[in-house]
């Protein structure tokens, strides 16, 4: 049991992180064309709304709440000290979990039922869909059975995850956790491992620069402003026109 725990909660997370980092960088550098959200809205647009929108907004909220519990556990615990705030947070998060579940099921049914979508569905898409579905169901179950997740996550799992990132892994607390929580953790590592090989990479290229870039974009083969004026002296920059 100890060996299995050691592998699942020390070995596996490091494998996941390594595969994730190497994978996304390699794919970005050598297979940039495949970085795409691969939207299928063009083939089916109406049902997608009821799947994609709840799924994305829900998962965004859940992702950032998990991140917050990991990065600022003390603040979360302090926030939860008041029972009303704890309830609001827990119920809110649970509702977002339900939203994600609803979205995922809608998306899955949409994929299966529409023959037009099968040609643009890879085996990896199905795998990922099932994996996310399992992960969300596990998350909802453990939020319901082992309360109150936001507090114990911050006090028990955050130190464990921190120990992973500081290369001093400590799994005593995790080994004692109930099976549901262990499965949810393993699911998370699995998603990270598969990340570079799935369409999930589109979240890494979220177009935030659109907020501040000017609307129009003009590119020059011969950038007028960069071309060296022959009258000027050489600089340490490589001149563009010779």
């Amino acid at each position, binding site marked *: 049991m100890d060996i299995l725990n050691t592998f699942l909660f020390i070995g596996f997370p490091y494998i996941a992180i390594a595969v994730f980092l190497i994978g996304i960088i390699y794919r970005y550098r050598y297979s940039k*064309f*495949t970085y795409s959200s691969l939207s299928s*809205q063009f083939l089916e647009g109406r049902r997608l709304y009821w799947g994609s929108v709840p799924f994305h907004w829900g998962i965004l909220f859940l992702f950032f709440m998990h991140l917050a519990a990991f990065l600022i556990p003390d603040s979360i615990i302090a926030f939860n000290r008041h029972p009303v705030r704890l309830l609001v947070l827990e119920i809110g998060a649970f509702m977002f979990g339900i939203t994600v579940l609803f979205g995922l099921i809608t998306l899955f049914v949409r994929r299966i039922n529409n023959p037009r979508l099968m*040609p643009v569905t890879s085996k990896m*898409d199905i795998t990922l869909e099932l994996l996310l579905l399992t992960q969300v169901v596990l998350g909802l179950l453990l939020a319901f059975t082992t309360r109150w997740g936001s507090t114990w996550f911050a006090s028990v799992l955050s130190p464990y995850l921190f120990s992973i990132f500081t290369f001093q892994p400590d799994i005593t607390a995790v080994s004692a956790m109930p099976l549901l929580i262990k499965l949810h953790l393993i699911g998370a590592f699995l998603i990270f491992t598969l990340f570079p090989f799935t369409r999930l990479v589109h979240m890494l290229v979220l177009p935030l620069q659109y*907020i501040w870039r000017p609307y129009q*974009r003009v*590119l020059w083969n*011969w950038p007028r402003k960069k071309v060296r004026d022959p009258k000027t002296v050489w600089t340490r920059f490589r001149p563009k026109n010779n």
Partner: protein
Amino acid sequence: MDVRSQISMVFHLDKCIGCHTCSIACKNIWTDRKGAEYMWWNNVETKPGTGYPTKWEDQDIYKGGWEKKYRGIGLKGAGRRKGLFNIFHNPNLPVIDDYYEPFTYKYLDLIESPDMDDQPTARPVSLITGKPMDIKMGPNWDDDLSGTPDYARHDPNMKGLSPAEQEALFQLEKMAFFYLPRICNHCLNPACVASCPSGAIYKRGEDGVVLINQEVCRAWRMCVTACPYKKSYYNWDSGKSEKCILCYPRIESGHAPACMHSCVGRIRYLGVMLYDADAIQDAVSNTDDDKDMINFHLNVILDPHNPKFIAAAKKNGIPDSTIKAAQDSPAYKFVKEWKIALPLHPEYRTMPMLFYVPPMLPVMASLTETNNKAQAEKMDPKAKVWDDNWLYDTSTEDLWGTIDEARLPLQYMANMFSAGDTKTVRDVIKKLMAVRFYRRWVTVGDVTEEKTNTILKEAGLTAEAADEIYYLTALAKFDDRFVIPAAHREQALEMMEFTGDAKGSMGFGFKEPPKRGL
């Protein structure tokens, strides 16, 4: 002042015979691929008609183009706020059924079928699912006014026409139509570029061609919504948007694009125009009135003979060959000198750089009330012809009357080419008619010289201009129609810097196969 050069086009609609050769030339070169079967970077529509995708001109449905805001302009269906909030589901995205589901036939069944009592048939199969399908729509489904009740009657350009006018248009004896070939307009104020969240779409500084960098496109699909002409297409297989590239490899080497080169009716002209990039912002956002857009648009285009502009162009690094091409440009002559070419739907405020010479034939043809029975009696029973001009009135008695009583109402043309302003279209058609009268005087001689001069004067043309218009319309040779400055070898990217650095950002030259990602 920031002078730049732009490859600009003129399509002379009177000469278009609707043969679709341009579409086929384009398809064979660029879009004969999986995911792109349904795309027609070049397509030819019958007008009146709903076009491709169906009703693309109705921006209440598709929300394309720019609209005047309290201050300046904003994108109608995309932009920073709408684009990012609708990124998970774009409510204004057309779906494939708005174009048509691509299909082929199982031709192999015809020759591989076993011996049967019945003849084998080639069933249509979908190019998406591969399964047999019923064809509901295809490219040019409404060609030549076929299915008029379903298509032509729903043309968005009918707005502003009285019900009686619309009804008259679809009387079998009076039906009139013309063809509208369309490619990407390579706009000066492109909505697709502005709408792209990833910044994958850009306008080339040297020649103004608008391109999509396939390595940066992430399928946020806002360009499809934003382009009011629906000339940005989503490749459902590769998950990237694609659009007309104006055959830039051919342009760079001084050749005409495939659609233009193959044009049977020789309706297409292509040349360089100089414009002031600094003036665009004001031009598109200054006026509340869509009808003023044409004038603002034309003001941005500069006179290539003016020494002041030539000096500014040279200072901006525009080569002499390009300036020379701008001076000889057929596009400049049609658009600015003679003012007989108009942009398609200037009210979208994208400043399209593809201009159309409106068709005259549906206007010229006569409009006498028809009494079918009376006409039938008048027909010569042996020769089966009428000896009067009841359908095509080619008399020279009345000068401009035919314009206002045109079979295809002027308001319809105006809705397409001048944001509903009939005066602009009337002026253009007057000029075109004046050239015809003038040539009739020269060749047939049944018009008096005085009358010809009056007509030219009223239309605002000189005899020399009429001669030139006639030459460029009817006689122009290949090199007159296409004045393209080849790209300069010494400015080629390879000469200046490591191509790997620059080509990625310039949207061409990637080595990996364009395969759909996982």
